């Protein structure tokens, strides 16, 4: 018995020594190195973390890259594609990229979480988010959603739907049967869900291309419902922007030129995006580029206002987000948005 205990003690000691060695090793290795922007030739290198695979949704950036607008401003820009498990906010906070693309509503949650991020360019000035329901379901407005199966991609894309439910005084968790929607529209085709999320520039076009006509389903537009929250924007770290203000303005200026070109030449822009990723057909990329144009440059707006940070719309996003539980506190718009870099950028435009 005594012998046994001794052996045991020795084993325990060995274990503790091993543990100590492990911790010491970890301490020595030290913090993981952070990626920094570096100069390539005379060009300043900038990395952008996109929200998704290359597609018409981001046409302005790919055009500015392919057409040399970034190079003209002295920038060498790399665009990292996104994916289901890439979070732009994390990538920018971790200095993997200097500029990120995300929904403004999602950026708000990271700002409340203490991330040092600021919105500097509002790419989509209207919400492209639609809900679609087959005509036979009889669902026409947000009020009809009660008790229905509603699909969402979640991951930061659900908050307009929450705001819609909140508008009709529904309990967000109890009154709607939320379903995780995958990145096909199969659940919609096979009636596994009553209502599907559909970006008007992407999934809606896919459904139309799949043998359905516009008469087959009802569309709930978040803008008409009054619960539009702003989506795609460009954000940076506040500390980085302070030190690199000029660089950022140059980047924004070239991006505006990229969008102007894409809106005027959607066929060529669609081809550029198609070549960049081949994630969908050429026709789909052209159609998507055309469809996003009206969110980037709403009807009647001057082409040099692309990216404009319109306070009333930003404030509406903040207010709706606060009401529907997106943020616990109401974010101050002055802490959340900085339009000085955009103002500097448009000064250089003709």
């Amino acid at each position: 018995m005594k012998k046994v205990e001794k052996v045991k003690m020795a084993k325990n000691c060995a274990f503790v020594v091993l543990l100590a060695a492990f911790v010491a090793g970890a301490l020595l290795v030290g913090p993981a190195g952070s990626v920094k922007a570096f100069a390539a030739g005379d060009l300043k290198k900038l990395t952008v973390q996109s929200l998704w695979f290359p597609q018409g949704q981001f046409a302005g950036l790919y055009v500015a890259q392919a057409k040399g607008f970034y190079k003209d401003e002295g920038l060498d820009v790399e665009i990292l594609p996104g994916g289901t498990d890439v979070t732009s906010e994390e990538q920018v906070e971790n200095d993997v990229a200097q500029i990120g693309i995300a929904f403004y509503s999602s950026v708000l949650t990271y700002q409340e979480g203490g991330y040092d991020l600021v919105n500097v360019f509002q790419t989509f000035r209207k919400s492209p988010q639609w809900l679609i329901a087959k005509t036979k379901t009889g669902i026409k407005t947000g009020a009809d959603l009660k008790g229905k199966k509603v699909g969402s991609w979640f991951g930061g894309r659900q908050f307009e739907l929450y705001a819609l439910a909140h508008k009709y005084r529904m309990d967000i968790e109890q009154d709607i049967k939320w379903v995780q929607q995958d990145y096909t529209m199969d659940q919609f085709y096979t009636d596994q869900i009553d209502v599907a999320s559909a970006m008007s520039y992407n999934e809606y076009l896919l459904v139309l291309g799949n043998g359905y006509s516009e008469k087959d389903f009802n569309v709930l537009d978040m803008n008409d419902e009054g619960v539009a929250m702003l989506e795609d924007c460009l954000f940076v770290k506040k500390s980085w922007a302070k030190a690199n203000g000029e660089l950022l303005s140059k980047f924004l200026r070239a991006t505006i030129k990229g969008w102007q070109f894409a809106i005027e030449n959607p066929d060529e822009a669609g081809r550029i995006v198609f070549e960049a990723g081949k994630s969908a057909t050429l026709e789909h990329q052209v159609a998507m580029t055309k469809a996003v144009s009206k969110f980037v440059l709403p009807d009647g707006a001057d082409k040099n206002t692309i990216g404009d940070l319109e306070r009333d719309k930003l404030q509406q996003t903040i207010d709706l987000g606060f009401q529907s539980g997106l943020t616990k506190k109401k974010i101050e718009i002055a802490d959340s948005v900085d339009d000085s870099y955009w103002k500097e950028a448009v000064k250089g435009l003709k």
Partner: protein
Amino acid sequence: MAWARLNARANGGCASKIAVLPPLLLGAFVIFLTQAGITHHIFGIKPLQLPLPLDVASAFLSNFDKILRHASVTLTPAVGGMLFGSLVGYCVAILVTRYPKGGYGSLFVMTAINSAPITALAPIMNRWFAGAFFAKLAVITVISMGAMAVNAFRGLNDLPPFSLDLMKSCAAPDMEIFLKLRFPASLPAVFTALKINVAVAMMGTIVSEYFASETAGIGYMIKYSLKIGNQKAVGWAYILAAAVLSLMIYAIIAAAQRRVVAWHVSQRLDYRITV
């Protein structure tokens, strides 16, 4: 035999108390390092990205009702699938034991199926089964069959020397040989397989929930919360819940093992120390 059992009882409790001490201390030490911000410093991460343990604890407590609800959604298919899959695996092991010539190859097939990635199985099962519960049950059944089949086969055939010869020389029928010799001999291996399958089942269920259409379950809540900037601590609270649940099932199986196969060498103190 009786002596062995007594001895195991007498020392078992004391030994296990000492045995849990180092891992507990390690856990407390790591938690302390993290709360003090030392872990963050070592790996160059911010508290926003890895929430402090106290924040996770408070998120755990304030969301406790929700966590229980989602835990039951995860636990039911995890435990059900684990038991059902293990049963299927055991039956295969019996068949292979009875018909070794034709059946031996099926163990390889089992192992092959077992190594199919959950990330591939989950979306497939989600398409095959209408309900998320059955989809998860199917995934867990498939991934927990293999470990049981291989382990149980070994247990059913690793018999005390000459015991099979003795029973055969007494003309014992197959059923008798199974009930009195093979079945008891297989029990230690069965518990080993069950312990492996606890981790596999929890992991499998959580990953399945990443792909499921259902908006419930611990896996879904982890995915959901970690993607929202001000909900990271809540996400970690669900990770904590998953760990606690796994430990609880593991503890139940270990307790059952101590009662059922107390005679086995793995439950005896001298064995535990020298191996």
